[in-house]
Every structure is written in C-alpha cells, then in structure tokens.
C-alpha cells in the first residue's frame, strides 16, 4: 500500500516489485492483499447484483434468460460471502491483530501467504464456470441436491473452488487462533485484548469447527454425482433433506462468522468517537461467546418447512429467539457507550452508527423469521432476502467500511477526504434503504426469491428497489475512489489519528514501519 521506509537499520524493508506481493510473509502486506482482493470481489459480486436488479426492474423477461438469472443469484451469494466479506475480515485481522497485541507478525507467516494466494485461484475457477457448457451453478448458494446435481460441466469446478475457499479460511483461522494464544505482548491478558481481537478469536474457532463440515458436505455431493454414492439420493437409500441438515450445521455458524468480526470493529470505533471506554467490556466478550455457542443449536430454523415434528419446530424456534438476548446485550452496550459521551461524527462513526441502527432492523426481521408458524408464510420470499441483506450489507459491509475509514489513515499515513467520506455514507444509507426496505413488503405480499419474473402487482416496489440498487451500486465507486486516492496521498495523519483512539496500534507511527513491535511492548 505505502512504501513504508525502514525506520530502523535492522529492519528489512519490503522486496521491490511484484515479487514483494507474491512471496510476502509480512502480515501488513498480506492484510493489504486480502483487503484489495475483497474490494475487487465486492465489485464483481456487485455487478452481478446489478444484473439481478435490472432483470427485476420490470415483470417479464427482459435481459437475461432464467438460467442465467439463477446463475447470477448463486454466484452473487458465493462471491459476496466467500470473496468479499470473509476476505475483508481476514485482511483486517492480518493488519490489526499483531499490532493490537504488540506482536511482531502473525504466528505462521508462510501459511499466511498460502491462505491468501489460494483465493485468487479459487475465484478464477469459480468465475470460469460462467463460460462452461451448461453455464455456472444456478441451484442457489446453498447447493441443495438434487437440483445442484443437475449443474453442467461447471459442477466439479464449483465444488473444488469451495474446497479451496474452505482451505484458505481454515488456514487463516488457525493462524489467528495461534497468534492470539501465543503472541500477545507481556501483560496483554486475554481480558485486556481489544474487542476486535476477541471477536476474531471466537470467529476463528467457529471457522475451524464448521468449514470442514462444509467441505465434507460438498465432497458428498461430488461423490454422489460422479462415484455412484447415494448420500443424498433417495434411490440408493439416501436423503436430500440430510444435506440441508449438514449444510445448515455449517451455514448457521457461518452467518455469525460473517457478523462477529463486525461486532468487534464497531466495538473499537464507538468508544473512540464517544470518547468513553466501551461500556460492559466483559459482558461483550461473554455475549459474543454465547452467540457462537448458540449458533450450533439453531440450524434447522432455515428448514422449518421441510416437515419437522412440532417438538423440533418449537425447539429451534425458542433456541433461535434466545440468540436475541446476547445480541441485545451488545446493542445495549453500544448505546450505553455513547450515552453522555462527547460524540463527534466522522465517517467511521457514521458507518458504525448506521451499523447499529440498521443491523438491529435486520435483527428484528430475523426474529420475525424465527417464529416457526409465520415462517411458513415468509419462507423463500423476498422478506428473507430483505432480512439477510440488512444484516449483511448494512451489517457486515457497513462495519467493514467503518473499519476501512477508521484504520485507513493508520495503514497509509494519509487522511481520507472527510467530505467525500460523508457523502459516501449518506448516499449509501439513503439508497440501501430504498433498495432493501421495499423488499420486506414484496416478501410479505408473497413474492418468491430466486425467480426472474413476477406478477404485475409487485412491479412498483421492484422498480423502487431496482432504482435504489443502481444508485447504491454507483455510490460504491465513490468508496473505491476515496480508498485509492488516500493510498496515493493526502493530508498526513498523526500517530494517534483520532483524538479518542486508544490501543497499541495507535502508538505506532502512521503508516507503521514494515516490521513493528520487534521488541514487545509492556502492557501495564
């Protein structure tokens, strides 16, 4: 990102040219690679979303055929989840965990390089399926058999790319856990760690626990298709519903993998701009751990309509609602942190506040979906689409953007353009609501998801939603512009950057030297 000049004669600076990025084992370089890769994938997945919204602008079939439409919904999800949100979090972890803990680097630097460089290959393979006979995967990102087994030549490529993404995440997660458990500076006890580090520790455990299960599930799909096994084929005594159980045993913890680091980011930002320490630090830690634990017990709430006995519906309904308790604790703590604080509203704080407000909206629609009897109405409608886009776009993505604005001056040594940042926030926030809020109404009225056409009574809300979508998509180009121009130059940032910022990363110069904390700081 920047050419951090070696400030110390013992430091080896970065290698020059392209080989720096290919062979690097430096956590800052790898963090940068992850973040830029994530930004690229954000636009690739975003372009697919634009195709979806263009097709849904009017009833009837306009631009793409139904098969390609379904390929777009499937690929949009896979790319945004595994290509945009998860690598962004791993990139933030790489950049921040060592400098927050006073460690010189990640514990396993060579593996760190591997876990990043697998990703471009995985996604090249996934994207190449768009040009294969029979088209890309179109059965939805959940890969339910028997539909997914009808995928054409693309099928094994999709499966192997998921294997590679899983491998990358598992390696990243192991690295995070090993770093946090072994590389903390003297005096940095677990309960003194910044909350971002805590949420990532818990997320990493979730990743280690569930990504292998996904790998197993897709392997079973592969052998069902090519090697004559019948894990999910009723003809041989298997059961397609079992795939849903195995998939969601992975899938539900996965959605917390996509949000827990966001909780961590917001818990770093709000105290800085409220100029007060985080309210209820230890309750935040326990709430995060409780959410992670409960995530293993609620998977079947994605499958209320498969035909479960009443006891099952009730168990999964109550267990799901229980998650609202620790999540409520977190929202309460964020609000209490701001209570009577000396607040200022720079761009990171705006995005963090947008997160708290709109993630909570998504949380509430989640509670509505958790109610088994009404879920029969909402299941597979646009209400679900609206729900998970509120928690993922205005939740995860907003937190990532807040984090990007918050730490960008630290990473690059340059301040971003505050005026443009505020424009980016307000345009995004207006249009993201124009985009997703009407989808609640569409879903309640019964519009199904993953269908390229719809009844004409849904037209008005779809027009509004599509217009919001195009505007939101265009607004994100502003984000790319702000990031790139900040990398290239701008007003110099101070070491502390933000008046209220506390933590080890703010004691380093901006940008930090290529090798930092080679001698561990002592934490009082």
């Amino acid at each position, binding site marked *: 990102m920047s050419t951090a000049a070696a400030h110390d004669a013992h430091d080896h600076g970065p290698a020059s040219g392209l080989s720096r990025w290919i062979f690097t084992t430096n956590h800052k370089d790898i963090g940068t690679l992850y973040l830029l890769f994530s930004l690229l994938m954000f636009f690739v997945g975003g372009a697919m979303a634009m195709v979806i919204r263009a097709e849904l602008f009017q009833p009837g079939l306009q631009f793409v055929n139904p098969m390609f439409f379904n390929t777009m919904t499937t690929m949009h999800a896979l790319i945004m989840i595994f290509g945009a949100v998860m690598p962004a979090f791993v990139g933030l972890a790489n950049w921040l965990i060592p400098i927050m803990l006073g460690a010189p680097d990640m514990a396993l630097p060579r593996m760190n390089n591997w876990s990043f460089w697998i990703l471009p290959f995985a996604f090249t393979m996934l994207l190449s399926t768009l040009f294969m006979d029979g088209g890309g995967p179109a059965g939805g990102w959940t890969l339910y058999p028997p539909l997914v087994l009808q995928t054409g030549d693309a099928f094994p490529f999709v499966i192997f790319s998921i294997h590679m993404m899983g491998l990358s995440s598992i390696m990243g997660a192991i690295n995070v856990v090993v770093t946090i458990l072994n590389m903390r500076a003297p005096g940095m006890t677990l309960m003194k760690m910044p909350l971002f580090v805590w949420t990532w520790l818990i997320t990493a455990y979730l990743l280690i626990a569930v990504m292998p299960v996904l790998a197993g599930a897709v392997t079973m799909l592969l052998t069902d298709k090519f090697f004559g096994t019948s894990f999910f084929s009723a*003809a*041989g005594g298997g059961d397609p519903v079992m795939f849903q159980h195995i998939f969601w045993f992975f899938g539900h913890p996965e959605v917390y993998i996509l949000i827990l680091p966001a909780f961590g980011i917001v818990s770093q930002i709000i105290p800085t701009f409220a100029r007060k320490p985080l309210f209820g630090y230890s309750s935040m830690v326990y709430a995060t751990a409780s959410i992670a634990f409960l995530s293993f017990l609620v998977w079947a709430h994605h499958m209320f309509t498969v*035909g479960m006995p009443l006891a099952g519906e009730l168990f999964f309904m109550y267990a799901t609602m229980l998650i609202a308790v620790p999540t409520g604790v977190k929202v309460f703590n964020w609000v209490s942190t701001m209570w009577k604080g000396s607040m200022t509203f720079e761009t990171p704080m705006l995005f963090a506040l947008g997160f708290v407000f709109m993630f909570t909206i998504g949380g509430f629609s989640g509670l509505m979906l958790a109610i088994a009897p009404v879920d029969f109405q909402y299941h597979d409608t646009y209400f679900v689409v609206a729900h998970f886009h509120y928690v993922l776009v205005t939740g995860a993505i907003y937190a990532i953007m807040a984090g990007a604005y918050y730490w960008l001056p630290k990473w690059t040594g340059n301040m971003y353009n505050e005026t443009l940042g505020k424009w980016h926030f307000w345009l995004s926030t207006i249009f993201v609501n124009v985009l997703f809020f009407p989808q609640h109404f569409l879903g309640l009225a019964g519009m199904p998801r993953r269908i390229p056409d719809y009844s004409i009574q849904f037209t008005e809300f779809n027009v509004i939603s599509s217009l919001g979508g195009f505007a939101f998509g265009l607004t994100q180009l502003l984000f790319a512009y702000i990031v790139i121009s900040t990398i290239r130059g701008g007003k110099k940032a101070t070491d502390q950057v933000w008046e209220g910022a506390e933590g080890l990363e703010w004691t380093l110069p901006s940008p930090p030297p290529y090798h930092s904390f080679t001698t561990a700081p002592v934490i009082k």
Partner: protein
Amino acid sequence: MNDAIRKTSLRLLLVTLAMFGFGFVMVPIYDVFCDWTGLNGRTADGPIANAQAYEIDSSRLVTVEFIASVNQNLPWEFQPEVVKMQVHPGQVYRTQFYARNLGKQAIVGHAVPSVAPGIAAQHFHKTECFCFTEQRFESGEGRWMPVQFVVDPQLPDKYEVVTLSYTFFDSGKTTTQQPRLEIL
C-alpha cells in the same frame, strides 16, 4: 517456530480433521436418529413379524392414499391400482401397483417408499412389499406388484389421512446383461 506455536497449530489441525470426519459421521447419526424417532417418513426396510398381533379397531377409519411416481425420466409407466382406501387400524390390507417398462432395454429399478405425514411412518407397517427387493423389467414387460400393509392402532387420532408414496428409481444396473436364470 517455537514449541507453543507448534503445539497449538497441531491441536487446531486435529480439530479441523475431526470436524471433517464429523461431517461424514452425521450421515449414520441421521439415519439412526430417523429410525429411532420415526421421523422423515421413512418406513422399515423389511416386513414386520407381528402384524397379526394387532387388535382390529373397527370403530375407526383411516384414509390411506397411494401415489406412484417415476424418477430420472425413466421410460416407465407406474400407477397404483386404487388411489385411496378406507382402512381399519390393525387389519391387514392388500393392494397392488402396476409398472411397465416402456423403453427398449431391460431396467432394474427400485421403488423407494415414503409415508406422509412423517410422524405417521412409524405407525404404518408393510408385511409384504415389492419395495423390499429390486425389480427387473424386460423391455415392454409390465406386471402387478402387491403390497400388504397394516396401520398400527396406536396411530394418534389426529391423523385421518396417511399417504404412501412410491418413487421408482433406476438402480443403475440398466445393462444388457442377461438374467442369470436364462444362463443357467
């Protein structure tokens, strides 16, 4: 790499491998769980022995519906003799399904039964069924296949209709191999 880092890494690697295995262990767990609870509409794979032991409850009538379908675009005709029957719990009934191979090749198929609602499956027993074995059909051959069943009188009162559906699958042995009997 120091020892502490090596130790933690190896432990986590072990957890990763264990969880990969756990994904596969979920398959038998699922089967055992479904057998144990009778969930999922699965019925027993073989005939039950004590079907005659039930006391016939002639005061109660349960409707049993029959559905037959063919999977994987098999060139088959497959249908039940009657679409529904009124039965007394505890009494053994017999009906039949007709299947005919419309294709040019012999096909070995397997009918997979499923009972809906799922909870009723554990109270629905077959004493004789063509679904227990694979069925071979020569090109153009058609035949009636019997199924004999009994509804357990312990079926909860709220279930008034039970649906038995069969789906015929190609067993993947659709080759030109000759039946062994002819060779012998």
